[in-house]
């Protein structure tokens, strides 16, 4: 009672009572967009009354019955609403500004929703953000802009690694991408400038409608549609240069010769002289100035009953690592047509692309080769077949070190792809509020991955034939959705929307892999039947889903959403083929309560959701056993083909499932000048599928069996804050977001408890990614170290006097159990591959025609296992190495003579280099200035005669990075072979370059 009274008093104080006499009149005017283009369908409302109007096709409106004291709000989707007090005006022309805010309409599964009615956790990024910063792939638009979403880019043409709310599975952790309702594998075929908006659905209340495909979250992409109004032609372009400036500090020739002599007793002075005592900086040889250029042309128009938009784009990138590049031609056509109660439409995107990936050899990356190569060896040697220099004798470093320039540039690898993403739909209003919609969508791809390596000789590495390999793959996913929606309002306040969908998904793919050699010529880069290899395979997956959803709200105040999906998948055996997924969401628009009238809060909404999703992203046919006939043994000089058990089947495989809980509070103050939201999520995934290692001695085929073995919890907070202000010609906004995430394994089947998994990062370096209850998935596990043994007494004190393996100058690994033996019992937790939090800060400002954007993103609290340190510091064998090896421990007379040395002696115990120890682990936190852009828009009558808009901009990306990480780039990508188990491991792949870009946009 007291509380109510208080509210009442506050309300009374705040609400200014106005009792001016009302005098009715009519006002009219034109509503335009920021560029001055008339807006059809903008709405004009008198605050606190039902009096409203909307603009016609030319942006004109007329509103009757208005009094001087009325406040009128002009609004249009995607633009900032403006409220004007009428006063004595009769003509009010309004130019609506671009919205600094997120969109009012949010794209959700099977439809859209008003933001005010959203109960789930959804982040959105609009086209404005996407075009503000030049990007080459659509996923990059999410980086740092959507709380809880991490995006890491790789080499040109590779799909970035995207994770939503951390890692909840040990299997494929890629989110589901839905482009205009089409389920697609990735966004590589999509031109970023064709995107209208991206919604990231983060909790199960929003994703459960995609059931078994939504485990890792869903990214909904809506492409730009034609706008009602006169036709508009837009051309935009940018060109830019990219460089990788950071290098590892490695030995030059003089230092290398000294190191070879002192540490390996190899006198190479004469050897280096044979090559003319040159000094090759192999890292400089593998990086180059990358170039990119991008051109987009689009045309949009619309009439009362139809809209259409056509676009074409061309992107060409020359990577900043030699031999890499990407080229994409993209075309898109979006159309809709209204014929009475029938709406039909289509959205088709076609892209052709060519990727030159980063090449590697011997399982080693270019960077690893560049570090290992001796600096006295020349890059080129005209006498060699192919023209490249290289390791000629064992003393030059064995064939582990290959000329990286030859690896990257001898011959070529190109992946030529075609992708078609499209849909056709028809929507029919059967009865008032009752709609039937049928949509067929297609995701088709065809890739030809062709590699040609001419014969070459560079010394111990050579190939005395040319080789050609080709992988042709082709696949299609056809989704057939039929849905019924009923939307009605009962008694003016009960808003009800019901949706039912039947969805059938058919996925088929096929690949053919072939290879051959040519012993006669280097001139033919085609396949032949000399030394051929040939295989092909077909895959098929089918899904069937039944979806229902109910949205209910009472006067926009009390919100309820319930959904359910039943999914069947051919990837699972008959014992567990179907899975049921559900969600429940509740919301309360507190700001709409009468007691909030006149408060500073323009938005205040509390929402909570719970729901489940599943994951079926495992290989096909896992539940059935098969035979493997890929064995060969010679008998009588002929290949005897062998066949044996090929896999350990598990007919009881079932879905991975995830239960999400999410609580959120959205708020907006001072008429949405200050906005924000706070979310807490707690996701628990269970029955995680994993290839469980079987006892090696059973000799079980593949050594593993897929089992549902683990439960993992990921929980955290996400905070987004936004502020926008306008003072005369100066407008500015700031949007900040921060997401925390804590990963913890809750349960493991006994067979996998305490398993150490993950990749072996370098030959001779053990793996270190461990599974343990109570720890993050794949946390780093290995030895702690405590300096270097300085003398024999120290060795004996630690390890006893009988052992002869460890000597002064070796690393003192911490003997945690004190048994004087260093073995796996002494390993412990060395680090967490996942950040404590990610953050992004986006600043926008505009003064008259100038616009400015600055965008900072970063992560904090993660550890990186820097496998490159093995090459740089192991001193295991004589290769190029870090200059730090010059300061290694020097042992004379069984005593270390330079006690300040941090590196062990050369040629010490193999554990020095081969054991997973904390010496490889570094803090991976960084703050990066992802982007700064300065733009200028030309305006004025002389321009508007020909153009509606002309904007030029200059942009810099990744210009400044603040980090303690010693590697080339703390934003590490995983390899193509990477699984979730390779989290946080820097294997030495494509670093993010710094870019400078110039671009412009012209609308006619």
């Amino acid at each position, binding site marked *: 009672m007291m509380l109510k009274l208080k509210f009442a008093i506050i309300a009374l104080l705040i609400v200014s009572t106005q009792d001016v006499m009302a005098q009715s009149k009519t006002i009219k005017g034109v509503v335009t967009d920021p560029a001055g283009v008339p807006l059809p369908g903008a709405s004009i409302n008198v605050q606190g009354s039902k009096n409203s109007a909307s603009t016609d096709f030319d942006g004109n409106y007329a509103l009757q019955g208005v009094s001087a004291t009325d406040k009128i709000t002009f609004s249009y989707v995607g633009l900032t609403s403006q409220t004007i007090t009428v006063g004595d005006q009769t003509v009010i022309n309004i130019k609506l500004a671009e919205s600094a805010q997120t969109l009012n309409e949010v794209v959700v599964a099977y439809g859209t929703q008003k933001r005010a009615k959203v109960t789930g956790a959804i982040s959105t990024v609009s086209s404005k953000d996407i075009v503000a910063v030049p990007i080459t792939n659509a996923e990059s638009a999410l980086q740092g802009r959507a709380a809880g979403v991490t995006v890491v880019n790789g080499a040109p043409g590779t799909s970035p690694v995207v994770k939503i709310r951390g890692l909840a599975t040990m299997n494929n952790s890629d989110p589901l991408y839905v482009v205009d309702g089409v389920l697609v594998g990735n966004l590589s075929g999509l031109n970023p400038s064709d995107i209208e908006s991206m919604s990231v659905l983060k909790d199960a209340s929003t994703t459960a409608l995609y059931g078994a495909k939504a485990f890792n979250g869903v990214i909904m992409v809506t492409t730009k549609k034609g706008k009602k109004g006169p036709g508009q032609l837009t051309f935009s372009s940018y060109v830019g240069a990219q460089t990788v400036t950071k290098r590892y500090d490695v030995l030059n020739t003089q230092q290398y010769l000294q190191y070879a002599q002192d540490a390996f*007793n190899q006198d190479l002075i004469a050897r280096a002289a044979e090559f003319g005592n040159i000094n090759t900086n192999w890292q400089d040889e593998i990086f180059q100035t990358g170039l990119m250029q991008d051109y987009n042309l689009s045309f949009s128009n619309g009439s009362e009953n139809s809209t259409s938009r056509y676009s074409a784009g061309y992107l060409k990138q020359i990577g900043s690592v030699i031999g890499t590049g990407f080229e994409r031609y993209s075309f898109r056509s979006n159309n809709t047509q209204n014929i009475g109660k029938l709406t039909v439409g289509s959205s088709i995107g076609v892209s052709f692309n060519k990727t030159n990936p980063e090449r590697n050899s*011997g*399982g080693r990356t270019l960077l690893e080769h560049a570090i290992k190569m001796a600096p006295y060896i020349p890059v080129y040697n005209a006498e060699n077949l192919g023209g490249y220099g290289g390791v000629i004798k*064992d*003393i030059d470093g*064995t064939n582990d070190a290959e000329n990286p320039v030859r690896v990257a540039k001898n011959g070529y690898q190109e992946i030529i792809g075609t992708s078609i993403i499209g849909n056709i739909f028809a929507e*029919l209003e059967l009865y008032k509020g009752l709609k*039937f919609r*049928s949509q067929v969508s297609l995701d088709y791809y065809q890739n030809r991955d062709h590699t040609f390596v001419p014969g070459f000789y560079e010394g*111990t590495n050579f190939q005395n034939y040319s080789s050609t390999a080709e992988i042709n793959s082709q696949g299609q996913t056809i989704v057939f959705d*039929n849905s019924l929606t009923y939307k009605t309002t009962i008694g003016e306040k009960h808003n009800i929307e019901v949706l039912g969908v039947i*969805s059938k998904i058919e996925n088929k793919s096929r690949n053919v892999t072939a*290879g051959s050699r040519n012993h006669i010529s280097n001139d033919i880069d085609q396949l032949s039947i000399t*030394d051929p*290899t040939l295989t092909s395979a077909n895959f*098929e997956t*089918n899904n*069937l889903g039944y979806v229902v959803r109910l949205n209910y709200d009472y006067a926009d105040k009390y919100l309820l959403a319930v959904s359910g999906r039943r999914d*069947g*998948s*051919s990837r699972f055996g*008959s014992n567990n*083929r179907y899975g049921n997924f559900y969600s429940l969401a509740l919301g309360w628009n507190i700001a709409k309560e009468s007691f909030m009238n006149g408060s500073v809060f323009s938005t205040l909404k509390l929402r909570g959701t719970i729901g489940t999703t599943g994951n079926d992203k495992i290989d096909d*046919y896992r539940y*059935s056993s*098969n*035979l493997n*006939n890929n*064995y*060969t*043994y*010679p*008998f*009588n000089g002929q290949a*005897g*083909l*062998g*066949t*044996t*058990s*090929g896999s*350990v089947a598990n007919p009881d495989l079932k879905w991975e499932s995830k239960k999400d809980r999410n609580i959120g509070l959205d708020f907006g103050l001072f008429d949405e000048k200050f906005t924000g939201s706070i979310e807490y999520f707690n996701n628990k995934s269970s029955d995680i599928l994993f290839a469980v*290692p*079987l*006892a*090696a*001695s*059973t*000799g*079980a085929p593949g050594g593993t069996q897929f089992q549902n073995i683990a439960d993992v919890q990921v929980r955290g907070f996400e905070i987004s804050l936004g502020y926008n202000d306008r003072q005369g010609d100066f407008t500015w906004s700031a949007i900040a977001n921060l997401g925390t995430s804590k990963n913890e394994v809750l349960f493991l089947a006994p067979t996998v408890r305490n398993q*150490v998994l993950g990749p072996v990062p370098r*030959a*001779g370096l053990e793996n270190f990614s461990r599974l343990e209850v109570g720890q993050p998935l794949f946390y780093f596990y290995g030895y702690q170290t405590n300096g270097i043994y300085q003398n024999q007494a120290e060795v004996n004190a630690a390890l006893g006097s009988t052992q002869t*393996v460890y000597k002064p100058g070796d690393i003192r690994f911490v003997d945690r159990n004190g048994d004087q033996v260093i*073995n*796996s019992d002494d390993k412990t937790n060395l680090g967490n591959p996942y950040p404590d939090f990610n953050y992004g800060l986006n600043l926008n400002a505009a003064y008259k025609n100038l616009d400015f954007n600055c965008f900072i993103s970063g992560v904090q609290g993660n550890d990186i296992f820097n496998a490159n340190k093995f090459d740089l510091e192991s001193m295991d*064998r004589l290769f190029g190495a870090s200059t730090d090896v010059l300061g290694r421990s020097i042992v004379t007379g069984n005593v270390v003579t330079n006690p300040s040395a941090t590196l062990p002696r050369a040629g010490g*115990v*193999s554990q020095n280099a*081969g054991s997973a120890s904390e010496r490889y682990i570094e803090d991976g936190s960084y703050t990066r200035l992802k982007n700064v852009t300065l733009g200028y828009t030309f305006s004025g009558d002389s321009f508007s005669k020909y153009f509606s808009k002309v904007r030029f901009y200059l942009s810099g990306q990744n210009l400044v990075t603040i980090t303690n990480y010693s590697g080339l780039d703390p934003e590490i990508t995983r390899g193509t072979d990477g699984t979730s188990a390779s989290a946080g491991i820097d294997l030495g792949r494509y670093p993010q370059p710094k870019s400078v870009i110039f671009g412009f946009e012209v609308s006619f």
Partner: protein
Amino acid sequence: MRKKIKYIVVVLSGILAINSCDTKDLELTNPNALSPDTFFKTENQVQSSVNAAYANLQTRGLYARHIFFALDLMSAENQGNGGLEGNKKPFANFSFDASSDIIQYYWEACFLGIAKANFVLDNEEKIQALPNSVLTQEKKNKFLGEAHFLRAYYYFLLVPRFGDLPIYTTQTIDGAARSPKEEVYKLITDDFDFASKNLLSKDVEEKGRATKEAAFAYLGKALLYQKKYDEALAAFNKVTGFTLEPKGQFYNNFMDETEHGPESIFEIEYDEALGVGDKWGSDTSGEGKAESTLRGQEYGNLDWYNVFPTDDLLDEYEAGDLRFGDTFYVPGSKYNNGANTMTAANFGNGTRRAGWKKYQNYYKRVSELQQSSINFKVMRYSDVLLMKAECENQRTGGSQTAAIAYIKEVRDRAGLTTNIPATKDDVFNAIIHERKVELAGEQVRFDDLIRWGLAAEELKDKGFQVGKSELWPIPNRETSSNPNIKPSDNNPGY
């Protein structure tokens, strides 16, 4: 009304279209692989199941790479050069532990082979049920015999390295506990015995397959390792139809063109021409085309030269021993069909005395080209002769004179005179010497030293620890994945 009907038809047809593709679509079978349910129907299929079990012999875990490195270093026949990789170095000073990838690969390659042999034997009923018109009884027996032979062969690679072992006689995914090595030897002897009774003779069998004679030779060797000298001798005596390569042609045992010669009883087969695409990929499974070994590349003094023969081994050869020049290259040796001559610079810039010739391709080319087709003659008749000599010398009532006669046969071929006093000790010492030089670099010496109890003395400067270094540790990969073998169950000292 007409309109309404139209709408209803549209909606219903949409729904029907989906439900007509009924849930049968969710039941798919893998079109890319054979199903076990339909296998073992033809001779080719039975033979193919046996073939697969041979493939593990070729893996990098065994004869393609690691077995010769590990054992020749442990026996101090080799020493490491600067390029020797970190995972191989520990075998030179017995510092390996349970995390060694080489030990893991060795373990897994053997047990994968055992599982494949068991795959054949598990389907014995299906094989026996095939009508004789499809597969004769003789062939049924011999295919089963090959499976028994291979299972025993892999266990016989394992038991000297690890001691007590988990025993599997059927395919399973449940890890077994370790059984005493006596039980493992029982299985080995039973399997070789079965094989000796069912395999075909070398005169009719395809080259590369296990034969009756090979089964007897290995049965004898397994019995010898158990010090059952009389039984061993009886088995060796059934190894008939072999002679030594003649004097002056000892090197025929180590070349590609002279494989399956008169002295060869069992070989590990390699043939580059059949495919080498997976030579770097096959650590344990034997999958794919990996029909070459890295022996030549790794040992060759013109190539990686990762190891070199020790002075101790080089000095063991008597003056005039013809085998020295067929076993090692030294400065002045001819190679490449006599066209080239080795110089001191070819041996670590003059820092090394010799490099290996046995199993190198230099006899016909100048580089190893990272692949070799030369088969390993893992059971030679000279080995059988020397083992027979040992049986005679050791067995109760054995004849030293008979033993000396066997040794003499081997020494005659080497161009040496034989003058051994007919006492047990003298004969034993002669056998120690003769096996060391005859079988150098063939991975028999370390096992010999262990079973003779000489390792402690011979390897004391190499870091050999009595009570520990006799056995390898069970690899971590096993103790972490087999609930019945815990890290605490590991061999002493690990």
